[in-house]
């Protein structure tokens, strides 16, 4: 599928937004479910792109920038794979091979992010000089330049893919044999586990594992939606926090255990 000039400009604009958000992490235009849908919206291929976004979002659930660590780049992965999906013109059938392309892109994006964050070091040195002069305007300017550089980090690769055009992209996708694409989509089903594993490693403690077991057992009941499970989780968290406080005050105060029924039983 070929895009017209206006669509191409809009695609590059969406890429720019996603690149900005990749560093800001505020409005989340770079999250796959949003970024892919925006590419789909401006190219008129909404439904396949939304499905691609959903699949990539599952992969990216655990990807987050904690401290100075850089997560795999959701922005480049979702923007570039959505453009390739649109150019390939295979519609929904192209989603699984687009996912397979997204992973190497996320790694490539990681490198670009590290380069951009290194360049930003030079910018804050320029800010230091602006501070000497007491110039607010120059600090503002460097901040805006920094944000724009992050936008270009995604917009330039997006423009490059558009420049190469639909033909080569399509040829590349068609050249993939069925056993490879099927195998990749099976692998894609398992890859989601990596993100969850990262999150669990961050949060797990002896105290928390029973909640993990409860969640796993309850999830087998398919009537319980995620919202229902969320409600159960919030309730358990509140109950647990309250109970653990009662234990503390009971040891300190003696009679005031915060548990009227328990007090009555004790007195008899």
């Amino acid at each position, binding site marked *: 599928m070929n895009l017209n000039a206006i669509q191409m400009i809009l695609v590059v604009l969406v890429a720019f937004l996603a690149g900005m958000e990749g560093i800001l992490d505020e*409005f989340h235009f770079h999250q796959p479910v949003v970024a892919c849908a925006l590419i789909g919206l401006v190219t008129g291929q909404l439904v396949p792109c939304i499905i691609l976004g959903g699949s990539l979002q599952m992969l990216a659930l655990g990807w987050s920038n904690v401290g*100075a660590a850089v997560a795999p780049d959701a922005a480049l992965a979702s923007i570039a794979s959505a453009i390739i999906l649109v150019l390939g013109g295979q519609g929904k059938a192209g989603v699984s091979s687009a996912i397979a392309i997204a992973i190497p892109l996320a790694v490539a994006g990681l490198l670009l992010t590290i380069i951009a964050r290194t360049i930003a070091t030079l910018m804050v040195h320029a800010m230091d000089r602006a501070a000497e002069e007491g110039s607010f305007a120059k600090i503002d300017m460097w901040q805006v330049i920094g944000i724009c550089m992050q936008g270009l980090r995604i917009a330039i690769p997006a423009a490059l893919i558009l420049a190469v055009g639909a033909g080569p992209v399509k040829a590349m996708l068609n050249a993939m044999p069925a056993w490879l694409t099927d195998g990749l989509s099976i692998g894609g089903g398992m890859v989601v586990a990596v993100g969850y594993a990262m*999150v669990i490693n961050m949060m797990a403690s002896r105290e928390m594992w029973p909640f993990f077991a409860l*969640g796993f057992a309850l999830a087998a009941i398919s009537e319980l939606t995620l919202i229902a499970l969320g409600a159960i989780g919030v309730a358990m968290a509140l109950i647990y926090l309250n109970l653990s406080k009662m234990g503390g005050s009971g040891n300190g105060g003696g009679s005031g255990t915060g548990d009227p029924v328990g007090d009555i039983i004790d007195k008899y």
Partner: protein
Amino acid sequence: MADQIKLTKSDRVKVWWRSNFLQGSWNYERMQNGGWAYTLIPALKKLYTTKEDRAAALKRHLEFFNTHPYVASPIIGVTLALEEERANGAPIDDVTIQGVKVGMMGPLAGVGDPVFWFTAKPIIGALAASLALGGSIMGPILYFVVWNAIRIGFMYYTQEFGYKAGSAITEDLSGGILQDITKGASILGMFILPALIERWVVVDFSPVKVSSIKQASGAYIDWDKLPKGAQGIKEALTQQKAGLSLDKYKVTTLQDNLNQLIPGFAALLITFLCMWLLKKKVSPIIIIFGLFAFGVIMHVLGVM
């Protein structure tokens, strides 16, 4: 005391808007420092008028700063209160302001990461993604609206809270509330994660047939003996409802056996394997490539 400089609500809203761009100049040397100075500029502009004061203020806010981008808001609020008092002549020196910033950023990042990155984002993301997988536009809209409503509300409210509470917030937050929020979020996250693993990590061993048993006559629908046309369809449906099997052979796959233990068991094992590899400092990217390769190999071998 007549001409005290006060930050108005509109100044604070300007600061809040700029705090949406906190990480724009994130760098390896002093991390969020550029964005931090950029965020405070509307307030500094109002509080300090001479060139020397402005230069000093900017320098002091270009020091190292890094925290979770959303929980920076209460710190911004407290800093606004401190800067306001300082501009009005209170004896607050650079060390105090830097001390408050550094003292708050560590513990608050410890709250922001589990609450936003490990609990809210996976849950909202999974909910939106499950809608999006069905091709529904509600997926992206839900994610964008819910995420930003929570984030913007949190950032504005906590910045105002920080500003009003001034430096008292540090003592308040280092007490019980902070620990409760962190622990509560961890419980919720640890409870929801296995559900996400069970429902969204797909490990399917269906191609592996464990057994294939020919069933006794009368236990399956005998398609040859059904009447023709619509009557036959009706008869077949009736028989199926009565519990008759569709096929002559009862095929049990490896997947059926695993599902009888508990659904999602293989997914759980894969997740534990990933956790173990991550603890062994294997890069997540290598694990991801490894799983793709594993999927292709198992498919070619006819196991998955």
